[in-house]
């Protein structure tokens, strides 16, 4: 996919562009918001936008983009991590907010998730391999066998399934499944995952829920 990185720290941007291309994406870099807005005229799948830029700042750039009717998903990067900063970013038209310093795996996972959101059609059923998730009836079957899940487990599986074949990080799960964005001391998410794994993978030959080392988890048929 094509990613536009608008970031005034050229070195950080270079690492980001390198990392993204190593994962098979095409990334361009703009050093300020003005250049970024011109480059954004061509189609990108995701825009990574630094909140603090010289001249026009990230918030204003996002508002300008949205005012022009550009709906490209925006991921804000910021050194400001307070709740109201986050809220401001999302209100200005941002789709996600990542606080510096961040792990590259986290950035990558979020960019890939954001790209999917476009053209997302309302789904009633998701299939991952032989796992079938009925979103309306809130039922889960694997290989025709009924699996009972707690409401939260269902929500967790639903999020993983909506992002099937992509890496989701622990913070993404905490933010989207529990709607909290703090950093829990213990890896509470890991325990929830292993419990879910015990229900959907246990007793089946091919595991669907994979741990991605140093990044998070991925639900996919392929290992």
């Amino acid at each position, binding site marked *: 996919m094509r990613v536009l990185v608008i970031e005034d720290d050229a070195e950080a941007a270079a690492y980001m562009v390198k990392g993204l291309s190593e994962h098979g994406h095409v990334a361009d870099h703009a050093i300020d918001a003005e250049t970024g807005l011109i480059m954004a005229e061509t189609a990108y799948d995701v825009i990574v936008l630094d909140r603090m830029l010289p001249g026009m700042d990230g918030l204003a750039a996002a508002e300008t983009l949205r005012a022009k009717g550009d709906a490209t998903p925006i991921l804000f990067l910021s050194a400001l*991590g*307070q*709740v109201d900063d986050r809220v401001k970013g999302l209100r200005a038209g941002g789709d996600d907010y990542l606080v510096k*310093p961040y*792990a590259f795996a986290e950035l990558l996972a979020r960019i890939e998730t954001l790209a999917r959101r476009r053209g997302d059609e309302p789904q009633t059923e998701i299939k991952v391999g032989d796992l079938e998730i009925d979103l309306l009836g809130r039922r889960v079957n694997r290989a025709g066998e009924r699996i009972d899940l707690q409401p*939260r487990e269902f929500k967790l599986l639903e999020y993983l399934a909506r992002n099937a074949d992509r890496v989701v990080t622990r913070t993404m799960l905490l933010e989207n499944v*529990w709607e*909290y*964005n*703090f*950093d*829990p*001391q*213990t890896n*509470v998410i890991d*325990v*929830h995952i*292993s*419990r879910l794994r015990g229900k959907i993978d246990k007793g089946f030959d091919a595991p669907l829920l994979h741990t991605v080392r*140093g990044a998070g988890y991925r639900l996919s048929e392929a290992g």
Partner: protein
Amino acid sequence: MGGLRKLIRSTAFRLAAFYLLIFGVSSAGLLGLVYWRSAGFTAQQIDETIAAELQGLNERYRLLGIPGLRQVVAERSGKQSQSLYMLMNPEERPLAGNINGWPTANIMPGGWMDFEYDLAVSGKTERRRARARKIDIAGGFRLLVGRDVQQRDELVGLIQSAFWWAGGGILAFGLVGGLLVTRSTLRRIDAMGAASQQIMAGDLSRRVPVNGSGDELDRLAASLNAMLDRIENLMTAVRQVSDNIAHDLRTPLNRLRARAEVTLMSDAEPEAYREALERTLQDADALLGTFNALLDIARLEGAADAGPSDIIDLSDIVADVTELYEPVAEDADITLLAEAEPGAAMVIGDRRLLAQALANLIDNAIKYTPKGGAVRVSAITAGGYAELSIADNGPGVPEAERGRIFDRFVRLEADRGKPGAGLGLSLVRAVAQMHNAEITAEDASPGLRVTLRLPSAT
């Protein structure tokens, strides 16, 4: 005379002078009114008496003619009184009366005149003031009736001088009193000024003197002191953070650096480099985590009180967070119990921060409770406070160390071998402070109970 100039320039002195002016003008007005009413009243009385007597004599004349009038005037003139009479014929000769000669004075409208006459008192002649009215009687006769007003004038003079003395006294007392009051106020303000000078010079523990009177100055001093307490707390917090960074971040940073350096020196296999880099990354992440936690705590401790404003049901947070930690507890063979009825504890706060605080507390409790133990989380409202408490039945914390557990980087003897940097409970305390909540750690016999008492929003 710098002191006097300073006194005159001071606000308190100006206020005192202004009040003195207002007070002086109004008392002068009051005294003036009293004077005018009393002097005017006696003058009017005298005039009325004269007019009445004159009318009586005039009637006598009409009945009895000049001879009758002359007789009455002569009779009355003979009596000892303050009344003065004079009846003159057309040839300007006195027919009867008790003054020697027709007075020379300007005649005012209505025949009134003020004049001086000679009165013989025990052989001596005395010049006295009088007021009289004259009427012309047919045929060129003239009649004068008057009264001696010397005594009245003396009385009025006495009143006047009394008023002057009183006025002067009021001014003098006002001035001296004003100066005294001003000086005592000024002295207190100077003391406050001196204290702030010392504080500015670096002695943050100094406080502005409070005399306990509860007046405006005292209240000002008290709120200045409250402000200073807050500033001192913040300064202490900043100093603590920098000390902490120096002590507790330097060691892991040093380790990280040493590993990178040693790995570079050795001629190792690519696999060894990879492993060293991965461990460096882990260390960096741990460092960043510590760093972020420190920043969060410092930011919360420095936050203005008017931060959170959402109405929150603590039982929601209890349900969410216990649900989040329930599998962790189960894995550790610990029973995690949530005891909170919906709506039982409403507070004004920040949902994310309260959840994080509770998460840290539950995390902590699970970490220190042995297998088979239980952690109870409850939220109730009691006595105007919403109480959020987390109790475990683990080994607890010795009483002597209970006060210390909320400090940064504090890890008790029993913590050796457990993960963590010792910042979780510091964050809890910072969140509590931000919510104006009281936080206590007590013996749950056995175990530890941590309670947050937040102002209730119901």
